[in-house]
């Protein structure tokens, strides 16, 4: 297609004598975008839109069955010598209008070509449906008549009264939600549990149907027609959809945005009602349904619908707000343009953005939405692949085609054949290949700091349990908990009345025996011997009781920190013998016991000993040095502490059949690391934390490849 700028065209004769005009059914509306006037042509029969610059419309408006295109063009030229489109531009314009089925012409046209066009369009639709597998649409029925009939009733709600009602209801619901916040939170944990999925889906369908009717009614209220309603397979989940695209031709921006927001307005309204129901019902289906509806309506609305980076309502609203129609498409064009200009040195084309502001918007949007899409789709892919192997693989294949193969193929084709690059093709190819090479070699050869973390628990290297040898009532605590005590220092004193009595009794008895010994020495020599042995026994017993008495004062057997959780409550309480009262911990030597997953352990065995450091839970900013560590070279299943497992709030998956939460779901390796003593961290026995191993720097690509293989191996036993 020749230079669109030129005033005269060699093909002009083809249309110069034609008498054509817009179809009578075409509606013409004016819209303003960023202060520019545009004309929107709408064909209500097939919901086709066409946007024109006023200069082009001046010509289109002049096309009438009673004069030729040439006459209309001449008239246009006389009136607007500068803005009027050139012949080449007119040909392109008319061709586009013809393709959009907006033209009326008196010749029968080439019927074969009409069919050909129809066939091509169908093919295009089919292939785009397949490539857009995440959001496949199946139109089913035409809801327009239903909408028109019900509008007198429903439509009353769209207005001041409705807005007021909405504010009141949603406001009240927010208050209810805040009041019930703790319940709300605790219930949210099992939203994705398998038992709840059917309910979740049911409420999704109900809420989304209401959402779509919201769009439809708003659109209808402002005069747009809604002719298609059907089912969309959103990530293989059937949800309803309606086609409210006729709102695009509304003159008022506020109306266009309202139609875009209508779904969310309705959704939030019903979420509010669901909140009331939820708050007022007890456990049961209605209660759960209401709860799910609340979650769907609020979360999905905020995360998906309002998010302008995905092509849902938020996107169209943003597009209207910025007054940049076709935001995403033009953002891509803008990025393409920037690449062509900056990297390839193409100088001939003009920026798709007309103002600086628009450039900024388009560029920002293009980049952010690009990154965001990659992240979201990769996430969805991983989740789905995790749950359903076969579907996951199929989806991955489709996604690979539509997000990797097709774009790469298009890029190659573009580089090889695009006429835009005619003069700079060598540079364009060189730059592209260069960029890819730089990227790949960067990933393949530039080493990056490499490390991994493993959860673990702190253990004192030397510890000593303090156990009372004698039963007794705790009398007084002689050392404070956490105090550094020396060996022999008393920790607490117990009292034992019985012991005292026994001592007194034994004492008395031994005095008695001694007296009897004296007597026997004089009177009865024969009984002396047994008496003496009785004395001996009494003395021995006394000694034992004395020792017991001494043991009532509990002393530290070694230097260390006196740790006795809850010892304060023991005062005045009877403790039986052999009770563990607390621990004496040597603060100079702590050991960190970490559980390392099989995937990572290889790095610890294979290479020279990597450095490591520990960060403890709650004091993550302070690093605790490690001066020595070793791997216990046998796989284990029992966690050193239940605090590391899921049940204790840790990261390690535990076997579902273990009620104590200490048996890990997958075997792991234990690593014991000796911690440096001089740290500003309270080293407490049993404190959990993470150990970080600093491996040798390694480039990213080999690392990713290994991870991928490990993932595949783990998930699919490949």
């Amino acid at each position, binding site marked *: 297609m020749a230079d669109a700028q030129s005033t005269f065209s*060699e093909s*002009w004769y083809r249309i110069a004598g034609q008498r054509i005009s817009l179809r009578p059914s075409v509606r013409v509306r004016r819209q303003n975008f960023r202060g520019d006037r545009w004309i929107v042509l709408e064909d209500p029969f097939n919901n086709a839109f066409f946007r024109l610059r006023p200069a082009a419309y001046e010509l289109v408006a002049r096309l009438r069955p009673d004069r030729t295109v040439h006459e209309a063009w001449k008239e246009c030229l006389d009136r607007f010598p500068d803005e009027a489109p050139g012949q080449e531009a007119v*040909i392109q314009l008319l061709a586009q209008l013809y393709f959009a089925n907006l033209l009326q*012409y008196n010749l029968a046209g080439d019927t074969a070509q009409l069919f050909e066009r129809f066939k091509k369009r169908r093919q295009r639709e089919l292939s785009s449906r397949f490539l857009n597998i995440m959001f496949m649409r199946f139109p089913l029925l035409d809801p327009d008549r239903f909408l028109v009939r019900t509008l007198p009733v429903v439509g009353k709600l769209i207005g001041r009264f409705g807005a007021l009602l909405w504010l009141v209801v949603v406001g009240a619901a927010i208050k209810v939600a805040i009041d019930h916040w703790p319940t709300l939170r605790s219930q949210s944990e099992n939203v994705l549990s398998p038992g709840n999925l059917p309910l979740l889906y049911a409420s999704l369908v109900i809420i989304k149907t209401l959402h779509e009717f919201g769009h439809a009614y708003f659109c209808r209220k402002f005069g747009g027609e809604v002719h298609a309603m059907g089912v969309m397979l959103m990530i293989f989940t059937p949800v309803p959809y309606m086609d409210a695209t006729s709102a695009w031709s509304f003159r008022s921006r506020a109306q266009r945005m309202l139609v875009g927001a209508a779904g969310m307005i309705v959704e939030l309204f019903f979420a509010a009602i669901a909140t009331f129901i939820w708050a007022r019902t007890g456990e049961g289906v209605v209660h759960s349904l209401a709860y799910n509806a609340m979650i769907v309506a609020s979360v999905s609305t905020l995360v998906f619908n309002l998010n302008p980076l995905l092509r849902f309502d938020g996107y169209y609203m943003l597009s209207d707000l910025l007054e940049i129609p076709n935001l995403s498409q033009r953002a891509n064009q803008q990025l393409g343009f920037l690449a062509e200009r900056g990297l390839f040195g193409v100088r001939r084309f003009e920026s798709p953005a007309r103002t600086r502001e628009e450039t900024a918007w388009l560029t920002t949007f293009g980049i952010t939405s690009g990154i965001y899409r990659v992240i979201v789709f990769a996430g969805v892919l991983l989740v789905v692949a995790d749950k359903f192997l076969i579907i996951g693989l199929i989806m991955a294949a489709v996604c690979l085609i539509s997000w990797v193969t097709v774009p790469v193929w298009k890029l190659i084709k573009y580089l090889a054949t695009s006429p835009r690059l005619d003069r700079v093709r060598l540079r364009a190819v060189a730059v592209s290949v260069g960029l890819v090479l730089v990227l790949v070699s960067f990933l393949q050869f530039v080493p990056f700091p490499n490390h991994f973390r493993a959860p673990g628990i702190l253990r004192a290297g030397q510890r000593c349990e303090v156990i009372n040898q004698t039963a007794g009532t705790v009398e007084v605590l002689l050392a404070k908990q956490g105090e550094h005590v020396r060996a022999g220092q008393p920790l607490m004193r117990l009292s034992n009345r019985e012991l005292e009595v026994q001592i007194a009794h034994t004492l008395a008895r031994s005095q008695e025996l001694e007296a009897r010994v004296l007597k026997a020495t004089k009177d009865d020599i024969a009984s002396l011997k047994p008496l003496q042995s009785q004395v001996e026994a009494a003395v021995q017993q006394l000694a034992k009781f004395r020792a017991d008495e001494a043991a009532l004062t509990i002393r530290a057997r070694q230097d260390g920190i006196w740790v006795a959780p809850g010892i304060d409550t023991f005062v005045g309480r009877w403790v039986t013998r052999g009770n563990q009262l607390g621990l004496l911990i040597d603060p100079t030597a702590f050991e960190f016991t970490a559980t390392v997953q099989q995937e990572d352990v290889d790095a610890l065995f294979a290479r020279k000993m990597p450095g490591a450091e520990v960060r403890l839970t709650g004091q993550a900013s302070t690093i605790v040095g490690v001066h020595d560590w070793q791997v216990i070279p046998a796989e284990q299943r029992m966690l050193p502490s239940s605090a590391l497992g899921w049940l204790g709030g840790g990261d390690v998956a535990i076997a579902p059949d273990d009620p104590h939460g200490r048996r890990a779901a997958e075997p792991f390796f234990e690593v014991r690391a000796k911690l440096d003593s001089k740290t500003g961290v309270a080293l407490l026995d049993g404190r959990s934390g993470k150990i970080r191993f600093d491996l040798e720097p390694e480039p990213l690509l080999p690392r990713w490849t290994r991870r991928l293989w490990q993932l595949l191996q783990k998930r699919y036993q490949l």
Partner: protein
Amino acid sequence: MLTPTHDYRRLDYRVPPRVLAGLDAMVNRGVGIYQRRAQRVAKLREDAERIVCDEARWRELPDASLHERLMEFRGTFRRGGKLADEIVMGALGAIREASRRELGLHPFPVQLMGALALHRGFLAEMATGEGKTLTAGLAAVLAGWTKRPCHVVTVNDYLVERDAAWLRPLYTVCGVTVGGVTAAMDPAARLKGYGCDVTYTTSKELLADFLRDRLRLGGIQNPTQRLIRRLLAPVASDGLVMRGLHTAIVDEADSLLIDEAVTPLIISAPTKNELLKEAGILAEQIAGALELESDYRANSRYKEIELTDSGRDKLAGRAGQLPGLWRGNDRRTELIRQALVAREFFQRDKHYIIVDGKIVIVDESTGRPMPQRTWREGVHQAIEAKEGLPLSDPSETIARLSFQRFFRCFHKLSGMTGTAREASGEFWQVYGLPVVQIPVNRPCVRQHWPDRFFATDAAKWNAVVLEIERLHRTGRPLLVGTRSVASSEKLALLLSERGLDFKLINATRLAEEAETVAMAGEQDRITIATNMAGRGTDIKLGAGVAEMGGLHVLATERHESGRVDRQLFGRAGRQGDPGSAQAFVSAEDELIRRFLPVSLQGVLRRSLEARFVGSTQIAEKAFSLAQRRAQQMAFKQRRAVLKADTWLEESLSFAGGDTV
């Protein structure tokens, strides 16, 4: 009286298939390679040998029974179907014998192979002097027998008349009527010419008549629609001259189907456009005030003008002088660009000449003036303004079709040329023609002397003159090929300074041109001709010339297309004659300037100046690279034109079918 069927057929043409894209195109390319496989030639040879085996049987036949058999064949072909395919070999044998009796020419086996290739819808590559005219005649008889419209398309009117007259006895004895259509004919004569079974004509006449017929048809061009309309309201005479497009045998197919393919043939009527005229003169004045480099830059490779900021300012300052329509920024820039294009890229005596105060376009490749042609709207006027001539009325196009699209409309297209294999991919992709290489009858003994490279133009011409003198002294005839009329005139001047006698083909009268070229083989002859001049004419060697070494062809420049070079070299050493060829090229040739990257141009020039070991190899590589790039670019351009045409066709189908 025309039967409905007859009437329907008159408008019949093949709706050309879509130009394939993407994967389809790749597969199609693969099919093309398969279609061109070597076994094709082997099969053709085998078939030709079978015909030759039967030679004796045909020779014994008396004239009357030969005629009878020929008529039998004619009937079978008329009925068509499978039987006709089976008896082709027999039929060709009969025609061969008829040729021997009527024309005194007994077609060689290679000519039979060529005829079979044409009959089977191939593009036959046959070396110069292998008797393509007779080959075409054999195939045309077969086509003529079917009574479906058969056109033999040749290069110029002279050849039309010559070939039709020469082969007439053969056609007559075979029961086929033959006619010719040339430029000078009136509609009645054309009607008669096209009315024959086999019509000799040029591509221009053929396409022009086709377009004129279409214009006469008006709005309803679909044969079915028209037939219904005519049955309802019979019309006595519609003034159509043609009878549908079925078979075309294209001679010099590479030049017609490739080199000139995108030049559209335009039927136009002059219109009054005072606005444009007035603006043209003013634009020329403004453009005169702009200076190269400071105000605008010229890109010779793409023939484009780019205005600099200072140029834009100057233009804005003077915009007030222009008529209202042209005052706006876009329009005035367009106008001035056109004026600058006229100034920078169109040179007098190279691209056009002035005859009687009028611009006459010179065909760059043939050097022939083309009085009917005009450049597209605006440019022609801009050039007139530049030369200070009165501005002519721009002509308004009323119908327009490129040869490329036109030849795609034949049901059965076949062709012959001396050089096809370089473009075999394009022949297949665009026309669906597989190229087959027909072997030569007698081995070619032409010597191709190595190219000689020069750093500057001056050095080249100097060497050319010396070489001409040297060879002239031996008495060998010389054919010097030049790229443009201007350079042939330059050489002519140089040679007259040296007092050498030569013939210069200045392309005024075709018959004379052909004669001059035909005489170029005489002893002591020096002939200067543009590369394309006198195609289709044999250069027969004069007496004793063969002993001296035959004709020597000296090319003074390389053409953008290697095919044209080969064509020129092929003029020496035809049909096993001795001969030699050599090219003289310089780093300042247009081919190098336009198609070699600027960085390499410097390298080439320096290496040719320094003359170190290997500089010749560098130069060889540089020239073939430039040629390759030129050909690629040309192919891309042709494809782009075809795509644009197809797009236009689809987009504007509401405007009623264009011609095709």
